[in-house]
C-alpha cells in the first residue's frame, strides 16, 4: 500500500509540469472567459479600469437578440451538417473504390490526402480566387469564367457573395462547404481504409458465396462493422467545422449581410477589433458549450468504457 502511494506520487510529480500547464491554460482560462462573459467589459476603458461589474446574463441575452449571431448559428448548423455529410460520403466512396485495389491506387490515395497537410490559409486563399464571381454577366472571374469558356454560362452565379437563403441556409456557404469538403474528405477515407483492413476476407467471401450482391455486402456487413469508425470521424469533423476559423477568415470573411459568418469570426472581431471583450467571451462560451455537448460524452465513453 505504502509502495503504491509512493509510486503514485512519483508518477504525479512527473506529470505535474503538463498538469499545471493544462490546469492554467485550459481550465483556468476557460473559467476566466466565463467570468468575463458576465462582466461589462465592452470597451477598452472598462478593461483598463479592471472593475468587475457583473451584469448577469445580459451579454448572453444581447447575443440571443443579435441578428448577426442568429445568422452565425444557422450558418454553423448548415455548414456542419453539409460538411459532414459531404466529407463522409465522398470519403467512404473513395475508400471503397481504393479497396478494389486498382493499379496505381496508392497514387490516387496520396492525391486525395494531401489537402490535409496544407494550411487553411493557403487553401482559403486559392478557393477565394476560384470562387470569386467577378461582375456577372460581362466580366466573370474564376470558376464562372471557366463555365463561360465551356458554354455553361447558365451555371454562373455569385458564389460566396450571393445573399439568397433557403430555410435560413445562406447559399453563399456552398462555396465554403465545397472548400472544406475538398480539404477533409481524405480524412474519412483514411479512417475507412484503416478499418477495412481489419475486416476478414473470409467474411466477405462467405457472404459472396451465399449470393450476396456487392451492395448487400456493403450495407449489411461493411457499413455496420465500420460504424464506430464512422462515428469517430463524424465527431472529429464536427469539431473541425466549429474550428473552421482560418478557412472562413481567409476565403470569404463574414461576407455581405454576414452570409458566411461563423461564431469564431464574430468572436475574433468582437474581442480583438471592436474591444467588446465580454461579448466576445460570451460567444466563446457558447462555442465551448456546443463542442462540449459533443465531445464530453464521446471522451467519457472511449476512455472509461474499456476498463469495466
Amino acid at each position: 500500500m505504502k509502495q503504491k502511494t509512493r509510486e503514485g506520487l512519483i508518477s504525479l510529480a512527473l506529470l505535474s509540469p503538463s498538469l499545471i500547464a493544462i490546469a492554467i491554460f485550459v481550465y483556468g482560462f476557460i473559467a476566466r472567459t466565463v467570468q468575463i462573459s458576465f462582466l461589462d467589459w465592452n470597451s477598452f476603458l472598462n478593461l483598463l479600469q479592471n472593475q468587475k461589474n457583473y451584469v448577469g446574463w445580459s451579454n448572453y441575452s444581447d447575443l440571443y437578440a443579435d441578428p448577426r449571431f442568429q445568422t452565425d448559428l444557422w450558418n454553423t448548423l448548415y455548414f456542419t451538417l453539409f460538411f459532414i455529410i459531404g466529407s463522409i460520403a465522398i470519403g467512404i466512396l473513395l475508400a471503397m473504390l481504393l479497396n478494389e485495389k486498382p493499379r496505381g491506387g496508392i497514387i490516387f490515395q496520396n492525391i486525395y490526402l494531401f489537402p490535409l497537410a496544407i494550411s487553411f490559409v493557403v487553401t482559403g486563399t486559392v478557393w477565394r480566387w476560384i470562387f470569386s464571381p467577378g461582375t456577372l454577366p460581362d466580366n466573370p472571374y474564376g470558376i464562372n469564367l471557366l463555365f463561360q469558356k465551356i458554354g455553361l454560362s447558365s451555371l454562373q452565379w455569385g458564389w460566396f457573395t450571393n445573399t439568397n437563403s433557403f430555410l435560413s441556409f445562406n447559399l453563399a456557404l456552398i462555396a465554403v462547404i465545397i472548400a472544406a469538403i475538398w480539404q477533409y474528405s481524405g480524412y474519412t477515407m483514411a479512417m475507412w481504409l484503416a478499418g477495412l483492413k481489419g475486416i476478414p476476407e473470409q467474411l466477405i467471401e462467405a457472404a459472396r458465396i451465399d449470393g450476396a450482391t456487392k451492395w448487400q455486402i456493403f450495407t449489411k456487413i461493411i457499413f455496420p462493422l465500420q460504424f464506430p469508425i464512422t462515428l469517430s470521424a463524424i465527431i472529429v469533423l464536427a469539431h473541425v467545422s466549429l474550428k473552421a476559423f482560418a478557412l472562413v477568415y481567409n476565403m470569404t470573411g463574414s461576407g455581405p449581410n454576414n452570409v458566411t459568418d461563423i461564431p469564431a469570426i464574430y468572436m475574433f472581431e468582437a474581442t480583438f477589433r471592436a474591444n467588446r471583450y465580454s461579448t466576445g467571451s460570451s460567444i466563446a462560451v457558447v462555442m465551448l458549450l456546443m463542442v462540449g455537448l459533443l465531445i464530453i460524452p464521446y471522451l467519457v465513453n472511449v476512455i472509461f468504457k474499456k476498463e469495466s
Partner: protein
Amino acid sequence: MSIVKTKINRQIIIYALLVLFTSFFILPMYILVLTSFKPFQDVTVSTLWNWPTSLSTDGFSRAFKKLAPNLLNSFYLVIPATLISATLGSLNGYVLAQWKFKGSKILFALILFGMFIPYQSILFPLVQFLQAIDLYGSIPGLILVHVVYGIPITTLIFRNYYYEVPTVLTEAAKVDGANILAVYRHIFFPISLPAFVVVVIWQFTNIWNEFLFAVTVTSQPANQPITVALSNLAGSQVIEWNIQMSGAIITALPTLLVYIFLGRYFIKGLLAGSVKG
C-alpha cells in the same frame, strides 16, 4: 466471356471515378502552380485558365523577398515547439500507460479535453496572460502556446504507443528497484523512435499551418509566422496575383514536402487523432 466483360466495365467505372475525383482534388493546386509561374502581364482574370505565354519565376522571387523573414519565423517557432511538446508527450504517455495510479484515467481525460476545446474559449485570457509575462507578440510566446496546447495530442499518441508494451517490463524493473526515470531512459525511450516520428511530423505540420493563435498573439509583421504573412499578402488588393499564389506555394511547401516524403507517418498521426480507449 460476359463475366470478363463486366469485370472490365467495373474497372473502367472505378478508374473514371478515381480520375474524376483526382481532377477535383488537383484543381486548386493546378491554378496555384499555373498562376505562380506566369509573368506579370499574363496575370489577368480573363486569362486565368490559359497557359502562360512564357514561364517566369518573377512571382516567386518577389514573394520570397516579402516572406523570407516570416518563413524563418515559422522555423524558429515550429522546431522548438515540436521538440518540447513531443518530449512532454512522451513522458506523460509513459506515465499514463505504464505507471497507472488511482485517478490517472481521469487526469488523462482532463488532459485530452484540452485538444477539443474551441480555442476561442481561452483566447482572450491567453493574450492577457502573455502580456502579463511579457511574451505577447513574440515567437517565444507563440512557442509556449503551441507547447501547452500540443500536450493533449502528443500525450495521446505516446500513451497509445506505450500501452501496447507489456507492463511486465515495468513491473520487473520496479522489483529490481529501478526508478521511474531509469525505466524510461533504458527501456522506453530507446523504443520510442516510431512514435516520435509520428508525433514530430504531426506537430510540425499542425503548428506550421496554424493561424488563429498566430494572428492573435503576434501583431508586429516582423514577428509573424508565414501563415499570417500570407494572409496579409493575399488580403491586400494591390499585390499581383502571381505573387500571392507564389506566396501560397512557399507557405505550403515545407509541410507538403514532409507529406510527400513521410506521408505514411503523417497518416498515422491523422488516425491517432481519434481517441482510442
